[in-house]
């Protein structure tokens, strides 16, 4: 029974945080693109536009839910559900940290820990195409149908190089369990180069990582591969006929897919939750230092406000960052400090804090870095032409992934 209670608690936490992350990714994306293009982005709703996601959600939920008369009703209703369902399932097998023991309970920092985690994610992401394809077909509209068809063709084509790119690090790591994949990458070469797959010594998996990222862009329908919703060709592609919350669910699915592929890239290539420097170099204090520096920067800008409201908003952010920084400092230095006091409850609490927060910081930091690359690329690159997209997948990506897999297999067999 305790397993069920634990699973329910973990599910509640993960779903709650994940939904907020999805809402705020939209805000981050708009802000980052705005700054790349020398604009300021949303800043009307709340301080620095921080309440913009809330306003967007209220707007989307309360808007009129228009249903065109010419659509195929059953599949039209089904498509957004399918898209969101398969986008959200994948997060259940992603481990956010190693196995931990807090308050006498040993548990994984993931909702489920199947022995075939990576295959499960591949399978579910393959199912995700039904949402887009069905939406395009059920809309009963030329442009939507074109979007749906493009999406299915693109997904099928890019799934091959993606799977082959994943296979190369799996050959080295020798397991399909995502938590074990993370554990395998602990340790450092010569005391300072992390043993992440991307720095693997016989054959660094840089090529696999690049191939995986390109395929991930195509799988999540992001620019430069967002052919299914190419605005200049297809109006809005597969979601032309959708409005209100149905329209929003396609965006939710896109962002959820982005988070999932970023998490998979982090787990497979970037050493999961392991810090970039060994703890002997003081890497345990890096989270605290980053947050406290951010707080100091906020206070500095509050003292010299560029805009009138900064005088009031930035100190609040500064205090928040300082608070987070001190929590991370407690997580880093706490276990040694409180063990001297001898209070059992306090020791347990600080040890739980340290065990949960440090891996979580590194994992989320790496995932956010990859998400930033996704947004950065969107602000930078133009869209591919459709024939270029296909020939790129079959004449470059696929052979390159095969050769990469062959060389990796050869080196694994030799060493």
């Amino acid at each position: 029974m305790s397993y069920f209670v634990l699973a329910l608690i973990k599910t509640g936490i993960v779903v709650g945080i994940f939904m907020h992350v999805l809402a705020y990714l939209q805000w981050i994306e708009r802000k980052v693109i705005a700054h790349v293009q020398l604009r300021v982005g949303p800043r009307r709703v709340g301080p620095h536009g921080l309440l913009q996601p809330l306003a967007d959600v209220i707007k989307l939920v309360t808007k009129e839910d228009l249903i065109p008369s010419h659509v195929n009703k059953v599949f039209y209703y089904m498509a957004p559900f399918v898209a969101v369902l398969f986008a959200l399932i994948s997060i259940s097998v992603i481990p956010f940290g190693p196995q931990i023991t807090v308050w006498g309970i040993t548990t994984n920092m993931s909702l489920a820990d199947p022995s075939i985690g990576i295959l499960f994610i591949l399978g579910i992401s393959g199912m995700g195409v039904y949402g887009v394809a069905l939406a395009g077909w059920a809309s009963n509209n030329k442009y939507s149908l074109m979007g749906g068809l493009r999406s299915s063709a693109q997904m099928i084509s890019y799934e091959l190089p993606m799977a082959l790119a994943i296979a190369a690090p799996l050959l080295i790591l020798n397991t399909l369990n995502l938590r074990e994949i993370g554990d395998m990458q602990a340790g450092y070469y010569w005391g300072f180069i992390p043993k992440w797959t991307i720095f693997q010594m016989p054959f660094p998996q840089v090529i696999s990582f690049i191939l995986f990222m390109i395929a991930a862009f195509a799988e999540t329908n992001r620019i430069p591969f967002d052919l299914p919703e190419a605005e200049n060709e297809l109006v809005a592609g597969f979601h032309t006929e959708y409005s209100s919350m149905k329209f929003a669910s396609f965006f939710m699915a896109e962002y959820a897919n982005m988070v999932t592929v970023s998490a998979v890239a982090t787990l497979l290539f970037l050493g999961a939750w392991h810090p970039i420097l060994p703890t002997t170099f003081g890497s345990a204090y890096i989270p605290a230092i980053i947050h406290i520096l951010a707080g100091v920067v906020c206070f500095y800008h509050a003292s010299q406000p560029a805009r009138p409201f900064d005088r009031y908003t930035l100190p609040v952010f500064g205090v928040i960052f300082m608070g987070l920084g001190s929590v991370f400092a407690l997580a880093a230095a706490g276990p040694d400090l409180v063990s001297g006091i001898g209070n059992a409850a306090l020791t347990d609490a600080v040890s739980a804090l340290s065990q949960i927060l440090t891996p979580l910081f590194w994992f989320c930091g790496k995932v956010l870095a990859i998400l930033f690359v996704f947004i950065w690329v969107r602000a930078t690159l133009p869209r591919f032409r459709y024939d270029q997209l296909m020939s790129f997948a079959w004449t470059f990506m696929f052979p390159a992934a095969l050769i990469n897999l062959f060389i990796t297999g050869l080196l694994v067999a030799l060493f």
Partner: protein
Amino acid sequence: MDAILFLVFAAIAVICGINMVVQKHPIASALSLVGVMAALAALYLLLGGEFIAAAQLVVYSGAIMVLFVFVIMLLNAGAEKKSIIRPWGKYFGAPLLLVFFGIMSFVVQRMTPASDGVTFGGFRGAGPREIGQSLFTVYLLPFEVTSILILIAILGAIVLARKEID
């Protein structure tokens, strides 16, 4: 818990299977087939065959059925017309079906060895490692023959597709 999950997914599989035959529209049939495949994957998972479940999900419901749906959409196939039910089909169809099912269940009952039966999660020794090892040692010849067969099929498809262009 396992029994409840088994009943839920078995019911989904059966309902989707019936729905696939009953539905008039090809897309609805194809999607019902996806439902059958996914429910079967869940059943494999319940029995303990994790790798087979994942392979079922990746290969059948993920890749093959996407191709099916893609082709149906590309050809824009409409709902099929209701075919005329002949009188002998009307009167003898249901009894013949019952006889067929009866014979099938009798044969299955007789042919299967009387073992301890199947338990939930009792299926061990079919992880990716074991499957890979048996594929490349015990079943090497069938495995290679199958790959050559698939290669021939691919070449045949290319040859057939080429002919139309000329």
